[in-house]
Structures are given as C-alpha cells and as structure tokens.
C-alpha cells in the first residue's frame, strides 16, 4: 500500500502531444523519493488531445495523472498554464511541486512560487525530502562550481526545478490512474497569444558519444569543425557566444545555460574554459582541447591540452585521421 499523506506533483511538459523527456526524469526521481518514504506522485499534464499519453506516464513513476485539455494548451504559454496549474494547486493542495528546469519549467515555477508565497529551489542536481518533510536540494551557482545545499522552510507546495539530464527515467510495469479535469480557458481574456512558431529538429547532444566543440577561437567559422566531426562521426557543439552571434542554434550550446555532455570524447577547439562553460563537460570521459594560448583556463579541465593554432592543426589532423 502506498501512503497517501504526502503528495508530490510533477509538471509534465509537452508540445503538440510530445512529452518532454526531462519531465520523465523528474517523475522517476519523485517516485524514487515516495518509494523510500511514502507518498503519491501525480503528473500534471496540460495539452490538447493528450489524454492518451497520460496512462503511460505510470511507467515512469506517476501513480496518477491529472489532465487538462484545451486547444490553447497545445504549446506552453505562461498565462493560461500558470492559471490552470495554480488553480489545481489551490483546489488540491499538494505538498510538493516539481518541474524540469527547462525554459518553460522555470518560467512556470517562478510565477507559481510567488503566487503561493513558497520556496523554490533552482535547477537542483540532487533532491530529497528530510525527516521533517522539508525539501532539500543541491543548487549549483556561479556557473556550477559551487553548490548550495538549500532547504525549503516556508510555504506550500514546496517547489523545485530539477536540472536537465541529471536523473534517469526508469521504466516500471505500471499504468497511472488518469483524471481528466474540465477547465475552459477564456482565450479572449488572455493578455498574450502566440502568433508564430519556428522550430527545427534538434540533435540532443547530451546523448552523443563524440562531440567536437567550437569556441570563439574559430571566429564563427565552423567549416573545419564540421569536417573534423564528419571524419570521426561526431556531433557538433558550441560555446554560448557562438549561439549568441547566430552561427549555431542555442540547442547545441554547452554549459550551465545549455546542454551538459555525457560523451566518451569531446574535442574542444578555441574555447577558453569559462566556469559557465566547463560545468557542461564534467561528465565527458576524455577531453581534448586545442588552444593557442599556453595557459587558457580550459587546460585544467583537459586530459590532453594541445597548444597551437586551430587553423593550422585541424586541417592536418583531419587529413591524418582520414588516412
């Protein structure tokens, strides 16, 4: 029997009916906590024509899923999402509320925490509930080098957003109980609407085995990096400034405000190794970097530190690897 006295809600993000993988990571973590210390995990799923997806969330740890459907909820929009989730929280008073620390998860949680005057921990990399029932999480700061152990002391639900890619979705043999809740969004009363969306397919480089990473030392010219990546069947990643200037999409940007790599090999060319960047290469098995500065900070984070001009080394390297 599962004890029902404690309820953890997990916001399940979706877009056009496709569930965001990192929501499943949070769901599994929540289930791990309730399996240990009791309680129920409820997934909160807002979307359109989405109820079919609810039951299978049981496989990732949800005991129950609350579904709200409306055409306007097809993709995330802060106002109706905050209003509906806020209304559900008010009605049912869960003890904890977790979301993945995606852009949308942070957007929603930041608003709701103030609505309920409650504590919200940001992008935690570790999470538990202590003997007193208080949420304790590890919050990385300063680009990820320092971690604050943070405890919620006030407010209900106790809230946290969970860092992406830290926990693994686990598969169980169970289905979730599904409750579809009626809610009519008064679209004409909203202060915002989406008028256009432009999206392309995203390569999830957090799962890539090999990655060639370009930094500003490339001057924004990714030609050689592309050739090297093709030669060794690797994916491409970039440092943030390259995404800022628009030569690469944000989705392949590595670091605290981007993706964390889990690759066997990362070859990093022309990146200095700023704190916000290196937090994204912690879990790489072998790091090779090429830098013309003999003492760039990235040296400390490299297994092999090659001193030289990438424009001289890469063409030769590619040729030699091809042979």
């Amino acid at each position, binding site marked *: 029997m599962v004890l029902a006295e404690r309820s953890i809600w997990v916001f399940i993000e979706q877009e056009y009916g496709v569930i965001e993988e990192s929501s499943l990571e949070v769901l599994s973590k929540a289930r791990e906590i309730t399996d240990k210390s009791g309680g129920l995990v409820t997934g909160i799923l807002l979307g359109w024509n989405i109820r079919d997806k609810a039951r299978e969330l049981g496989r990732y740890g949800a005991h129950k899923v609350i579904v709200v459907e409306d055409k306007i909820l097809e993709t995330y929009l*802060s*106002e109706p999402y905050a209003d509906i989730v806020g209304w559900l929280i008010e009605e049912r008073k869960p003890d904890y509320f977790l979301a993945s620390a995606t*852009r*949308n998860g942070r*957007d929603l*949680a*930041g*608003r709701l*925490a*103030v*609505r309920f005057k409650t*504590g*919200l921990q*940001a*992008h935690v990399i570790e999470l538990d509930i202590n003997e007193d029932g208080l949420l*304790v999480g590890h919050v990385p*700061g300063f680009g990820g*080098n*320092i*971690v*604050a*152990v*943070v*405890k919620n*002391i006030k*407010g209900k639900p106790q809230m946290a957003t969970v860092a992406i890619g830290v926990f693994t979705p686990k598969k169980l043999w169970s289905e979730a109980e599904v409750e579809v809740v009626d809610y009519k969004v008064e679209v004409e009363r909203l*202060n*915002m*609407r*989406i008028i*256009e*969306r*432009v*999206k392309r397919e995203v390569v999830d480089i957090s799962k890539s085995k090999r990655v060639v990473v370009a930094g500003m030392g490339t001057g924004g010219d990714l030609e050689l990096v592309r050739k090297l990546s093709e030669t*060794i069947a690797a994916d491409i990643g970039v440092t943030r400034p390259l*995404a*800022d*200037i628009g030569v690469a999409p944000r989705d392949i940007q590595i670091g*605290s*405000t981007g993706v964390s790599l889990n690759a*066997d*090999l990362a070859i990093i060319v022309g990146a200095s190794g*700023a*704190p*916000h960047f290196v*937090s994204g290469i912690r*879990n790489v098995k072998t790091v*090779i970097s090429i830098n013309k500065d003999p003492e760039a900070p990235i040296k*400390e*984070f490299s*297994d*092999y*530190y090659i001193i*030289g*001009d990438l424009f*001289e*080394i890469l063409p*030769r390297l590619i040729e*030699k*690897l091809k042979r």
Partner: protein
Amino acid sequence: MPLRNIIVTLKITPKPEEIRFDPVTKTIDRAKATNEINPADKNALEMALQLREKYGGRVITVSMGPPVWEPLIKLAVAMGADDAILISDRALAGSDTLPTSLTLARAIAKIGDYDIILSGEESSDGGTGQVPPGIGEWLRIPHVTYVSAIEIIEEGRARIKRTIKGGYEILEVKMPFIASVELGCNTPRFPDFRRKRWAEREFKLKVWTIADLELAPEEVGFKGSATTVVELRELKPPERLKRVISGDPDKLAEELAEIIRSIIK
C-alpha cells in the same frame, strides 16, 4: 503616444571566474572578484535604450543591493539610463528570490507609470531566472522569459520574440508586461565618455530603504525568505590527465590523431 517608463532591473555580480571558495570556512570569497553589471542585464538595458530610441519613454534602472554597487549603476546611467534607483537596507541581507522579487516589484510600483519592465534571463551568480516571473506575479502583469526582441505594434501591444527549444516563437502581449532578456541577444553599447563623467560627478543616485517601500523587516531578508542555505560546497572539477602537447603543427597533428584513434577504436 510615446512609451511610458521602461524599467530595467539591474543586478551587479562578481565575475564567476574570479570567485574563490574557502574550503575551511565554507564561504564564498567575492572580495577579489571584479564586479560587473550582470551580463544579461546589460543586454536588457541595451534593449531598453533601443526601445526608447524608437518609441520614446524614460529608461529607469532599479537595483536591490549594497551601496558598493553605486559606481556600476552609474555606468548604466553613462550608457544612457535616464534615472537609477538603488534599494539598500541591512534588512534585505539573505533575501532569496521571494523577497527579492517582492522588493523589486514594490520599487517598480513606486516608480509607476510603466509600460515595459526588462530583466536579465538570469543572474550569473545565483542563476535562478526566477526573479522576473516572480515580479510579474507580484505586479499582476504578464511575463515572458528568454526574450531576444521586442517591437511595439500598436497602442498597448507588443510583439515579442522568445527562444524555445529548437527555435523561437512570436507572442503578442498586452502592456504593461515584464520580459526577461536573453543573454547575448544584442551588443551593449559603450558608455558615452562625457555622460560617464557627468554620471560619476553629478548624477545623484536615488537610494530607497524598505521603509520607503512600506515593507516590514520580517517581509524581506532571511526572515522573509522561504528557503535557506544549509551549507555551501565546492564542486571539484573531475580529475583530468592535463597532458600538455606542443610543438610543430605536423607532429602535433600526428600525435593527436594517434590519441583520437586510440579513444574511438
């Protein structure tokens, strides 16, 4: 009609690479770190200045922090802000995002007459990104996060570009609203030299206390916070070989090719 006030929340942060962690006292040593305007807030300020150039209005910065922030806030004035406010009070020490967003929201309400509030997407030290949506909630106005462009389309409405996974979306939002501005979405201008001198010598920064905002000490600081930091830890970088290879590019490439081959085999 010109825009009404454009308010920018401006935080001063230490450069992350200059932060040291003291393993004995388990505290962060910021003393040796250079302070700067939080990078994303600089982008927010630049966006505000561009909006003013196009649509009119006054750009006012608001910061909650210690008096030592003053020179850097004046730098924002030198960049072009019309006015700047610092909320400084001992009672504010230890504020988490709940009282921080409350205090900033109160100050914004006191300034009043605003159409647009701009924040940074996140601060480079705390990095929660929670403060802007929080301000939106306290003020009961819409919020949009990760914004890279804003255009006014008609009286009272703006068109906003927001970064999403895999691309972007365009929203139409009623003013007033708060937007958190994406780091690096524009190139912040350099301070004007003459304006800089004026800001340093003549500009008077307005300093408000919590009493000026009709906030009680229990509502802010440690007491008003809903979270508490139990302990700080250093996340040590993983052990790396740190083998340095240098020399002739041909030989370098040869050696590197060998290393790569042995790994990807």
